[in-house]
């Protein structure tokens, strides 16, 4: 009896909510967040957006005094749930703009929905070049999409310079063994390293070891790496990177190791690895761990830390991307008179936020325009974050920086020189 009563009550509640959901108020603008509500990266984007929205609302609202309302939809980092989440935001909540903290395959999952609904969408986390390629090949359908983080392709260029300036000139390393996870990401980065880093920087690739992402025991893999006789290890890891890096530390592998290590991007890395992560260096989007901040970004961090006490205690780079990006999206909307037309895309493309530190250009939030060719890589990056990799970094932000975790738990930027806070080094157990 009670079971049925409850069922009935539940049904009524569901029906009411369904009706409520369709009632939207004309004096609000709805922003949807899509991403994982339980990951540090997802929460960084969500909180960056929340702070930006609070500030915009406090400053008198947007688009002639409307308040911004934020609705979030959890993907649980599952591609299918991502599709449902996007549908929910688009059709149940009818949002005007979507900000995303999704990972690669989740973004790829909902992209066909974005094409269908044509809702302006800003991705702050995934850096997959394949998504930008969609804009290259099918601009008309994909044009509401923006990605304000430099894509994979950009990082290789920075890495070639890092290899030449630091690994070869400073460390005197001449040969490398590549440790690559068996994923599409791993394959793509491997191609860049083997075809670009090696020939340009003059580093010989002695061996490439591809490993399965579910690998439990890395001891034999590191043994093989040591047996290859190379001067250092180049690690490419985006999935379960903590495992390979902590085993490198626990096994005290007597070789230097650098590379792309997604786990080491956030401040919680040290806590999560329980300290088994010293010496790990990785490429990181900016603003990275250990990256000196300009006053505007610092103010954002102060607000953030006053407001949130739970993880992540310090926003990841995508939190900054969400904060600045959301403000840019609304600035563009003011210019274009709203979100739902092509003029918003044009206005968004015109956004150019320059953040200065000590009078110097420090960070820049701007987008590549369609057809605009980046000199060094000789390709276009429509709607992707504009990065500058031509020396001497004077007309934009770097695409990425290289950071390194020290054995005392601190971390700093080691490359490029302008942003550098410490020197690149090898862990204490590695003999020079």
């Amino acid at each position, binding site marked *: 009896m009670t079971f049925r009563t409850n069922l009935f009550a539940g049904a009524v509640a569901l029906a009411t909510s369904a009706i409520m959901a369709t009632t939207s108020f004309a004096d609000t603008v709805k922003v949807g967040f899509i991403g994982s509500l339980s990951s540090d990266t997802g929460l960084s984007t969500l909180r960056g957006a929340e702070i930006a929205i609070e500030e915009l609302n406090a400053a008198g609202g947007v688009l002639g005094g409307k308040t911004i309302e934020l609705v979030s939809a*959890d993907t649980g980092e599952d591609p299918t749930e991502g599709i449902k989440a996007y549908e929910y935001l688009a059709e149940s909540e009818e949002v005007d703009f979507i900000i995303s903290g999704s990972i690669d395959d989740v973004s790829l*999952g909902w992209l066909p929905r974005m094409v*269908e609904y044509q809702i302006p969408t800003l991705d702050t986390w995934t850096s997959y070049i394949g998504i930008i390629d969609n804009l290259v090949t099918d601009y008309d359908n994909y044009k509401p999409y923006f990605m304000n983080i430099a894509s994979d392709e950009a990082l290789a260029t920075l890495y070639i310079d890092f290899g030449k300036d630091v690994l070869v000139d400073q460390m005197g390393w001449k040969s490398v063994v590549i440790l690559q996870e068996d994923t599409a990401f791993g394959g793509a980065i491997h191609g860049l390293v083997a075809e670009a880093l090696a020939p340009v920087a003059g580093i010989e690739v002695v061996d490439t070891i591809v490993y399965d992402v579910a690998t439990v025991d890395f001891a034999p893999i590191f043994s093989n790496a040591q047996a290859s006789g190379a001067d250092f290890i180049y690690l490419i890891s985006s999935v379960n990177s903590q495992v390979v890096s902590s085993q490198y530390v626990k096994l005290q592998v007597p070789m230097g190791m650098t590379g792309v290590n997604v786990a080491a991007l956030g401040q919680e890395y040290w806590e999560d690895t329980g300290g088994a992560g010293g010496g790990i260096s990785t490429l990181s989007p900016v603003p990275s761990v250990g990256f000196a901040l300009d006053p505007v970004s610092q103010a954002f961090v102060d607000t953030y830390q006053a407001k949130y006490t739970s993880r992540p205690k310090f926003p990841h780079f995508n939190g900054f991307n969400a904060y600045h990006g959301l403000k840019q999206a609304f600035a563009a909307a003011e210019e274009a008179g709203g979100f739902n037309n092509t003029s918003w895309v044009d206005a968004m493309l015109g956004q150019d936020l320059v953040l200065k530190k000590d009078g110097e250009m420090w960070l820049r939030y701007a987008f590549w325009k369609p057809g605009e060719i980046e000199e060094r890589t000789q390709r276009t990056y429509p709607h992707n974050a504009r990065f500058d990799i031509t020396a001497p970094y004077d007309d934009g932000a770097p695409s990425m920086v290289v950071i390194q975790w020290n054995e005392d738990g601190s971390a700093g930027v080691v490359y490029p020189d302008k942003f550098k806070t410490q020197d690149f080094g090898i862990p204490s157990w590695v003999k020079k």
Partner: protein
Amino acid sequence: MISKPLLRSLIIWAIFIIGMLLLPKIFALLGFSKGNLRTLIQACYLAIFAMSWDFISGRTGYISFGHPFLVGIGAYTTAILSYRFDVPVMYSIPIAVIVTMIGGTLFFLPALRIKGSYFALVTLAFMELMYQLVQVIRPDLTGGTRGISGIETLTRGAVNGYYLAVSLMLVIAFVLWAILKTRIGTALSAIAMNEESVKGSGLSTTKLKLFAFMVSACVAGIGGAFLAHYNGSIAPRALFDINFLFTIIVAALIGGSSTIIGPMIGAFFLTLLLEKLRPWLPGAERYFVYGGIALLLYMYQPKGLYAIFWQVVDRFRTRRGGQS
């Protein structure tokens, strides 16, 4: 001459089909948003997978833990053909279904020799193997870990998508129902009860099992292929995943195993439950509550919602009967 119970079933079917087809209109009248239809579309596909699972596992008692394997073959085949090789959808989907049926035969081989928990485990191994292979072998075709996005879609908009999905589901349900009304259906259920006795009665259990596996694989392949073209994207993590397996099995069981309507009820219940929890529990709590409800329901009534429905009806009937 149509018998009376058959006629009654047919009438219930007709009402059910008309009801499902009119749902968008009813929703429009009630002022519900299109988002509800989107949810129902996902529910329809889940119902198809649950019916496919139930056709093997609910009927013959061979519990499949690798159903995502079959769904994934269907989805990947049509996605690769249409996205990579520009094969028109009208060819790529049938090919995908045939390939899935071949996959179903692979599935079938171990079932010739092993039963029960062992069969469940080997199918789980099939799924895991596929998960690893898809990422390793020819990522240029499968898209590796990221999968494929931008697959040609068959329809646009929630209403069209709904009609496609619901028609697909209803046709499959009706065909499965019709198959089970024949002698084959009775024999299949007998396998679950006592395989030896079926052997004794002179029917070929091997042929019967093969038939059940082929039908199940065919349905999974159709569902997987159409879902790939509805979602427009596929990824290994979305298909060869233990959470997906969980959803399929639980949908069939929560609704009511070895019935046709049960898996459909279960799929709609689970999908709506998960989606309607979203406004209140946006984060991980949602999966916790959703899983918890599924577990309690299953523990309380392993025969599913369909059985609960009839219990309630019976109680109501006897009470009424007692009074009159």
